[in-house]
């Protein structure tokens, strides 16, 4: 990793660039003063940051959706502080509120709640107890399916859910990193789904069609998958850089193109398992799959360690490398970056390529780790979940890692929840999307929980005094 890119400290770019890097630089010395104060969430202020006072179009990703550190700002050290300042509280409250709303939804459709509500005024306690048991019952089952199952056989059985969570979190983390990295460069990578699929196609083909020695085979599978994802993402970067085609539209279209390509291939002799009429590929060779980490009783595989490695890599890339500095500069203000001599086109292409490669890693984790075959459901909904993972993680590498674990737990637990309490898995989608919605709108959370630091309400956010800063835009 490090040999191809001399790791210069992010805060120390080329001397001749320094004079022109003023917009990011001027914010660099004390980012917390700008971003961690309660004012950060004032909608108008965010917009003024985004548009540099209305002077240019905002970057695709608002400052509030990024992790709150502009180029040159140390990130790790403020982690603890973040938790105790606005952002952390808002995140926790958003998760809490989403869970409460999800619980209400579960209760609302529960049969016992329905029957007790008919005599609500006669015995309201029955009704409330039913609501409570319906919601908590589901969540307890969710927890047991995701983290710790007290009824499991021995320690191995009790921690099996946790292993399942980590297995499911693996593709979520790597694909989420791809989305997050693109976010930081101001690009919306909606295309993780397609990138996972392309990676899955290439990796699985290498996995079942080639006959290679142990070790080398897996390495080639890994390489093929990463290249597949990287190319699929890179094309989007090239189109964006060369023609200005909006990456959101292009990536959405590329998702479908990849999906239909996959369906076509699974229909051909090249990919379809011989003697099988359903669209499914042969099983990957034993030499082409990830080794299991804790023996055959769990599905957890090497991919999880690679996901950790990928997180470290992205963290290093963003915070310690010149390239990452350029990415963040482009994300914070493309025009300033251009003025500073950063090749914005190159950064766009590169960031989409790397993002695609990371999503490709998720594809490899699917075909070489969890599934071991290629079907047309290889990407499941991981590509779309990756977007919410990256948003919840505020596009920081370790935030994305944590968010991936959380959503992995939701996914793993939901299966158990459906079996035990009959609550459909879809509730997870509801809770996930609510979390992201609430996190994206801190004023709403503050208003709901009465946390507004200032006297004025969140409602007239658009007309606050800070908006004056955006004034003379016209």
């Amino acid at each position, binding site marked *: 990793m490090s040999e191809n890119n001399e790791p210069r400290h992010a805060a120390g770019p080329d001397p001749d660039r320094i004079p022109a890097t003023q917009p990011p630089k001027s914010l660099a010395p004390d980012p917390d003063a700008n971003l961690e104060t309660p004012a950060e969430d004032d909608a108008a202020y965010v917009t003024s940051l985004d548009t540099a006072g209305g002077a240019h179009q905002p970057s695709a990703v608002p400052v509030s959706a990024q992790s709150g550190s502009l180029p040159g700002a140390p990130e790790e050290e403020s982690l603890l502080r973040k938790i105790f300042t606005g952002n952390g509280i808002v995140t926790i409250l958003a998760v809490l509120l989403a869970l409460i709303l999800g619980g209400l939804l579960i209760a609302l459709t529960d049969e016992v709640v329905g029957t007790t509500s008919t005599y609500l005024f006669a015995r309201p306690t029955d009704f409330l107890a039913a609501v409570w048991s319906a919601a908590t019952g589901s969540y307890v089952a969710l927890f047991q399916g995701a983290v710790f199952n007290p009824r499991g056989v021995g320690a191995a059985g009790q921690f099996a859910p946790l292993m399942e969570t980590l297995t499911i979190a693996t593709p979520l983390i790597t694909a989420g990193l791809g989305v997050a990295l693109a976010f930081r460069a101001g690009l919306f990578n909606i295309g993780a789904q397609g990138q996972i699929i392309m990676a899955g196609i290439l990796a699985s083909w290498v996995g079942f069609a080639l006959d290679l020695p142990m070790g080398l085979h897996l390495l080639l599978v890994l390489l093929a998958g990463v290249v597949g994802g990287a190319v699929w993402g890179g094309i989007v970067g090239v189109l964006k850089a060369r023609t200005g085609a909006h990456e959101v539209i292009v990536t959405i*279209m590329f998702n479908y193109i990849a999906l239909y390509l996959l369906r076509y291939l699974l229909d051909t002799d090249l990919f379809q398992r011989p003697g099988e009429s359903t669209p499914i590929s042969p099983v990957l060779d034993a030499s082409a799959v990830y080794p299991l980490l804790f023996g055959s009783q769990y599905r957890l595989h090497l991919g999880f360690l690679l996901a950790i490695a990928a997180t470290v890599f992205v963290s290093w890339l963003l915070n310690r490398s010149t390239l990452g500095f350029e990415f963040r500069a482009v994300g914070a203000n493309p*025009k300033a970056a251009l003025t500073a001599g950063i090749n914005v086109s190159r950064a766009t292409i590169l960031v989409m390529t790397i993002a695609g490669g990371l999503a490709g890693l998720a594809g490899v984790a699917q075909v070489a780790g969890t599934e071991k075959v290629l079907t047309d459901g290889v990407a499941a909904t991981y590509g779309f979940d990756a977007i919410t993972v990256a948003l919840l993680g505020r596009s920081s590498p370790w935030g994305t890692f944590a968010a991936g674990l959380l959503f992995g737990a939701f996914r793993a637990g939901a299966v158990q929840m459906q079996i035990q309490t009959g609550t459909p898995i879809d509730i997870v989608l509801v809770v996930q999307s609510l979390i992201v919605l609430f996190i*994206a709108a801190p004023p709403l959370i503050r208003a709901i929980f009465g946390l507004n630091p200032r006297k004025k309400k969140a409602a007239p956010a658009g007309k606050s005094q800070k908006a004056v800063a955006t004034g003379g835009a016209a």
Partner: protein
Amino acid sequence: MSTTATSPVPGKPSKPQPGTPPADKNRKQTVSAKPVTWKLPVTLMALATVAFIFFGLLGPQSTAKFGVSSGGDFFQLPAIEAPAFLSGIVLSVILLGLAGYALVLKAQKNQRPPRWLPAVFTVVFVVAFLIWVVGGARTPSISLAGLIAGSVTLAVPIVFGSLSGVLCERAGVVNIAIEGQLLGGAFTAALVASLTHNPYLGLLAAAVAGALVSMVLALFSIKYVVNQIIVGVVLNVLVSGLTGFLFSTVMQSDPEKYNSPGRLPIIDIPVLSGIPVIGPILFKQSVVGYLMYVAVAVIWIALFKTKWGLRVRAVGEHPQAADTLGIKVNATRFWNVTLGGAVAGIGGSFFTLVAIDSFTKEISGGRGFIALAAMILGRWNPIGAFFAALLFGFADNLQSIVTIIGTPVPSQFMAMLPYVVTVFAVAGLVGRSRPPAADGIPYVKG
């Protein structure tokens, strides 16, 4: 949506009607001011060459047969029979001629090809393609009337969805949530129609549901200035989860009671519906189908011929200027987005009240994203979006027909076609698609 540095500067006076043919007179002068690129002529030439090689030289030697009349027509027309090889050659030579004309125009006069050229090129290309596909099939005969009628039917939700997109984006709000609006409309239509035993109430409820989904989009993107794309993406997930959850818990518990909406009747206008080919598509539709034509016309007139439309477009192109003139920018956006959601909701009701008479999970199946593509291909214009949606409906329908008659083209590639075309469109290879200047940029009053 933000574009790169090559996009027009916001301050530049933008033409109010970038995508409408009627504005041609005024545009003639401004066209030459823009740089004329080689992209379009070269792309056309490449496509024409492909057509010449595949549809012409490598064309099948059979005769493609297209049935025109269906049994119910009040007069019968003979089926069209086209010798596949010959028509392939003739049509691809026409394509080559058109592309050559565009190249000559660029080379000698540095002019953009006339507006009709890409349209004619598309039509000829599609016809050549159709003859090639049918000619190469095991049974080289299809019903043209059925093909077109089926295309229109499949296009209905896409048209409504793209109209929703046009309404939102003309006012400057990116609407990625079309899929969610369609799905929300489909679910609510099924539920309400089942409970009330009245599909028309279901239709109304679908509009309300679509509007509600849209209001969340409007609330978060306008009031809380959350990035519009984020809200859109998340809303799709939310609606998908919510409808899936309620489907599994409520509808599945008693499908008779909650999920048997009954269908909207097909209203057959006597005599007129008997006209071959166009009769069934124009005069033999459900209420939703007729509403589609009405909506396209009304929204086009409203956007481009009324004071309201001028204001909406001003808000989408240059909100500061609009604000200066006393237009309430954010209120306009809010209500436009809401209206767009209602339109998409009606489109969603098509799934559960017309196509199938029950709701299933993910019934919209990604059509909201195709609608987004149709809107872009139609250049943010209701009529353009309508024809783009028809093209996508055509591809969708052809895909299923192709699997039946057995052709050399895999059906998956037919299904892929709309998306590939859209990528070409946004990459500027088939004409310029320029979004409204302030699309996706929140307006904060200063």
